[in-house]
């Protein structure tokens, strides 16, 4: 896509960004800022036809324009960098459109193309707050329940400027917040436990709900009468004295942490105090759970919070130059156990939920992958203590529609070029001068040629949207490319995102340093790097990174149903629930997406559910599969027609088998597992109990529901096995091997993506945005590192 640039005529630095995921797009966003005055000539090279990387999605134009995603995407309230960029995107689009309405002589961007009108006028229209969090909760009898908590709104919105007079990202601050939470939870727990010990009393609410309702209510804000009555109730069950001791301990600790002076320099005194407090808390919790088992989840949170406080102090992390990275060698559960967490807390669904969010309860190389303790703490602290507005923010359409489409349109208006259907096959590095090692050549396989007369591929289509006012259409990525823009001889059955179908059109595209690009940004997913040809991956630091960092394929399923969630037996608010049964341990009620699709005369789905989970047992790295030999043979371009056909047949057989296995897993999951959460979605009893398949909105047979598993064929499921789509795990001991975008060991190469050393070592959009901003800083000096929110987080 060529576009006019408003840049100056002076020599421009050519930047080749390989990979149009969040990291690559963020780098493009930063380098193409108008403030740079066209200093950078940016081109994004992208496999296939769509941007977004792991967040890419497509509209199925043959099935009600429904959204089909690789997984589940929710933004968290601490995604400061991601929200800043998104807000800027919407704002600049509006500004450029307003600019185009001025007389040309008064325009700021006189020669630039005008971005189309976005579907959502403002980012606040595209997102809404979701204050709930839920985890699957196994019962002793083997059944499952859901434990839901509500988190109160907090001041501000994500992406707002931070308060100038305080740094919220200090461990001391977190400890103070943790102690407030601890005290609130303890008080709330004891209050509940003290109410006669009789379960199920009228007006009982989730204990955490109550605690969080209180928020950071100070002890003293409670009326004396209420406090006295509470203490009296506590006395009835005989826990007053320890409770008072514990609360006093917490008060002392809180006062220490909120004080303006340092923590005790006599670390041992402080540690001993903490340990005594923790021991008391744990004893107290045992009593509490004996009195009221409903409080078990809350006591687990208390124990985990308490243990984290003890561990941070005991491991001297407050004063460690490496911050939380200092404990990244340990698995989070091991670290918590070492600091005294109870076995019940370690096995709690709350902790499992945290692991599931990071796909960390998977097996890699035959053993549990684990989750680096430092990053786990960092994530939990950012998630629970620094969110703004709401804990979660949900999108009213897909990530691609809400984020990538507007970004693409803005970047085009800024003059960024996009080269679709470019698959990176290799990187050659010149190492002749050890002090100035540089990328000599980027080698691409061109997957498709454009139809004669076309100069660029236009990836977006305007889709009709059921819930749109005034019939407004939404620019979106289709789930298949627009073959009408491609050469007539293009194989219309081809999956351009297939990991194995590595056919190319013509000779490889070889970009030479100094001629075609000056700087390169490697922004493909980590899983793709190990598949590259060339000598980059043989460089010692790169080889070490690939050896120590691990990825996992993920699987996803989406089902559209004829009944509302309450009619299926789910009585709680719409939630994203993790910690549930494998293989789809995470479920989200995505009914709010349905209006963004277009079901027309068909039965409109009353509910929509997304499932996802790790897929470690089926989808191995592509270069370890039998079909990889065929893939490399296709990439070589030296096969004749017959051999090509044979290789493709072998590849498709492999892909079909995998596809069928994922389908079988999803169907079995619905038949055997989902009834624990949606009891009314089941039919039959005992061994005959199974999912009611007629609930599915069957776009193949809208008027004639199917009552067997074949109904599932009309739904959507997939496995993210494309190398670049594999989720990057934060396994213990791997953080130190991450490559930093700031590293200039290869003088004209930087990296971007959630696999880099970006300040937040977890697979998420925020990490990718931080990484992209760092990559831009590395090439341009902008943005300032202090402006990358959370980069300097402990």
């Amino acid at each position: 896509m060529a576009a006019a640039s408003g840049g100056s005529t002076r020599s421009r630095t050519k930047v080749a960004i390989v990979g149009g995921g969040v990291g690559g797009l963020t780098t493009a966003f930063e380098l193409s800022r108008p403030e740079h005055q066209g200093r950078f000539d940016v081109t994004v090279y992208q496999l296939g036809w769509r941007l977004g990387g792991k967040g890419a999605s497509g509209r199925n134009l043959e099935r009600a324009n429904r959204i089909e995603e690789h997984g589940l995407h929710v933004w968290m309230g601490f995604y400061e960098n991601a929200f800043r960029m998104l807000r800027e995107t919407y704002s600049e689009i509006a500004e450029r459109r307003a600019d185009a309405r001025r007389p040309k002589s008064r325009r700021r961007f006189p020669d630039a193309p005008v971005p189309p009108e976005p579907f959502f006028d403002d980012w606040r229209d595209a997102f809404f707050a979701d204050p709930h969090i839920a985890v699957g909760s196994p019962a002793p009898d083997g059944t499952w329940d859901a434990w839901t908590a509500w988190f109160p709104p907090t001041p501000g919105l994500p992406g707002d400027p931070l308060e100038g007079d305080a740094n919220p990202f200090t461990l001391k601050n977190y400890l103070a917040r943790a102690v407030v939470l601890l005290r609130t939870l303890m008080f709330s727990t004891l209050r509940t436990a003290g109410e006669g010990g009789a379960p199920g009393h009228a007006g009982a609410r989730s204990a955490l709900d109550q605690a969080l309702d209180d928020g950071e209510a100070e002890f003293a804000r409670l009326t004396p009468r209420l406090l006295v009555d509470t203490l009296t109730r506590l006395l009835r069950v005989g826990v007053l004295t320890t409770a008072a001791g514990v609360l006093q301990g917490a008060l002392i600790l809180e006062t220490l942490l909120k004080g303006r002076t340092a923590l005790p320099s006599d670390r041992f005194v402080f540690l001993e105090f903490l340990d005594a407090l923790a021991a008391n808390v744990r004893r107290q919790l045992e009593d509490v759970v004996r009195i009221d088992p409903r409080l078990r989840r809350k006591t687990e949170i208390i124990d985990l919070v308490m243990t984290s406080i003890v561990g941070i102090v005991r491991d001297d992390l407050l004063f460690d130059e490496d911050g939380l990275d200092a404990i990244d060698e340990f698995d989070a559960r091991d670290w918590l156990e070492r600091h005294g967490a109870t076995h019940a807390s370690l096995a709690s669904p709350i902790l499992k939920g945290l692991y599931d969010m990071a796909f960390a309860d998977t097996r890699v190389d035959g053993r549990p992958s684990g989750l680096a303790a430092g990053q786990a703490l960092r994530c939990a602290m950012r998630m629970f203590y620094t969110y703004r507005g709401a804990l979660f923010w949900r999108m009213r359409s897909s990530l691609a529609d809400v984020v990538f489409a507007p970004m693409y349109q803005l970047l085009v208006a800024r003059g960024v070029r996009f080269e679709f259907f470019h698959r990176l096959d290799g990187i050659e590095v010149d190492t002749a001068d050890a002090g100035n090692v540089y990328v000599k050549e980027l080698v691409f396989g061109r997957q498709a040629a454009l139809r004669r007369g076309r100069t660029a591929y236009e990836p977006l289509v305007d889709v009709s949207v059921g819930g749109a006012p005034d019939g407004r259409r939404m620019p979106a990525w289709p789930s298949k490319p627009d073959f009408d823009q491609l050469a007539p001889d293009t194989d219309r059955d081809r999956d351009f995102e297939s990991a194995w179908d590595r056919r190319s059109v013509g000779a490889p595209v070889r970009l030479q340093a100094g001629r075609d690009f000056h700087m390169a940004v490697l922004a493909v997913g980590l899983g793709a790097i190990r598949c590259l040809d060339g000598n980059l991956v043989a460089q010692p630091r790169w080889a070490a990174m690939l050896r120590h960092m691990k990825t996992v394929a993920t699987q996803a399923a989406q089902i559209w149903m004829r009944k509302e969630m309450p009619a299926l037996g789910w009585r709680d608010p719409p939630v994203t629930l993790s910690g549930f049964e494998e293989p789809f341990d995470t479920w989200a009620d995505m009914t709010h997406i349905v209006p963004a699709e277009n079901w027309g005369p068909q039965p409109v789905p009353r509910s929509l559910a997304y499932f996802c989970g790790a897929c470690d047992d089926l989808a191995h790295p592509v270069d370890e599969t039998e079909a990889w030999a065929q893939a490399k043979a296709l990439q070589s371009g030296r096969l004749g027609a017959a051999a090509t056909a044979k290789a493709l047949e072998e590849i498709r057989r492999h892909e079909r088998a995998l596809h069928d296995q994922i389908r079988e897993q999803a169907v079995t999951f619905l038949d055997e597992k989902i009834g624990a959460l949606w009891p009314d979605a089941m039919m039959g009893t005992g061994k005959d109990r199974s999912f009611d398949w007629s609930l599915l909105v069957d776009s193949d047979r809208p008027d004639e529901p199917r009552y067997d598993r074949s109904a599932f064929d009309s739904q959507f499921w997939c496995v993210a096995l494309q190398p670049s789509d594999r989720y990057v795990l934060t396994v213990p001991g791997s953080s130190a091997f991450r490559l930093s975008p700031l590293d200039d060991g290869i003088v004209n190469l930087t990296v971007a993506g959630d696999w880099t050393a970006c300040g937040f070592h977890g697979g998420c959009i925020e990490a990718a945005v931080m990484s992209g901003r760092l990559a831009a800083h590395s090439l341009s000096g902008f943005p300032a590192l202090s402006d990358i929110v959370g980069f300097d987080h402990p």
Partner: protein
Amino acid sequence: MAASRESKKKTASQPGAALRRLRPKAERTGPKRGPQGYVKADAAAPEPQASRTPPPGADGKRRRNTDAVEDAVTRAVKLGYQVAEEQMHKSKAAAESLQKASAALGRGDPGEAFAQTLHTAKAVGDMATHLVENASSNTQLLAQALGGEGGASDWTALIARLRELLAGKVPGTVTGGEGDAGRLSWDVLLQQYLDTMRSVSQSLGGVGGSAKAGQAGRVLVVCDRMAASGSLALSRKPTTEAPSCDGLVGKVDGKSQLLDAQISAIAETGGVWEVTVKVGRGAAPGVYRGVVLDGDTPAGLLELTLRKV
């Protein structure tokens, strides 16, 4: 030939050098993770206060224990211990009553158990009042010592009300017969009191016992590749026969690492606590620390320093 190679190398290096010149130097190569790390609100915002004047002790330098004598915060913590110790003494009366109640329950004498429990409830009430009073006063003192805001409102009224309740109504409520307290059986309530008070006595005893902190021990290190020294500090006399340290953690090349070592149980030898650490061959130089556990309760610190020779 050598000159030719040199010339070739020089030619090859030119593109790399030219490309390097196009790339600005990054402000730094990594994040500031330590206590002095900070995040500015935005480019235009002033530097946060916290980063301008790092608080004492947050400068990344370990302070010597002797410095702590004058440390206001440490004094505040010790004040907490002092309060706890007073409470421990006060709890003795309650604990004795509970022991009598327990014995009466064991003898099948509910009348005596009831009488003792009433007595205990009052003792507990006194103690609770004391705790609440101290929770307020101690917090205020701490806040004052730390120069911050603090204190609680309405505490006087609260304490008066609590005294009133504990003095009169609570025992009456415990006997059951009206209100929701009647849902619990007498035996359950009594057992709860007993369990709770035992843990109170133990926990307060544990905290209060810290006044005897400072018992030093002896560390015998077996290490054939490096010079080694160690220190063992126990905060109180262990209650178990063999306190132990289950591992030593230190930093090697900036990364936390468990020391490859066998650590014996800690035993009293000639009035001195002693531990033997046999360092494995894979150990690296550094300072390693571990917590001494007395049962499940931390009771001290074991520190080991390994140096290359």
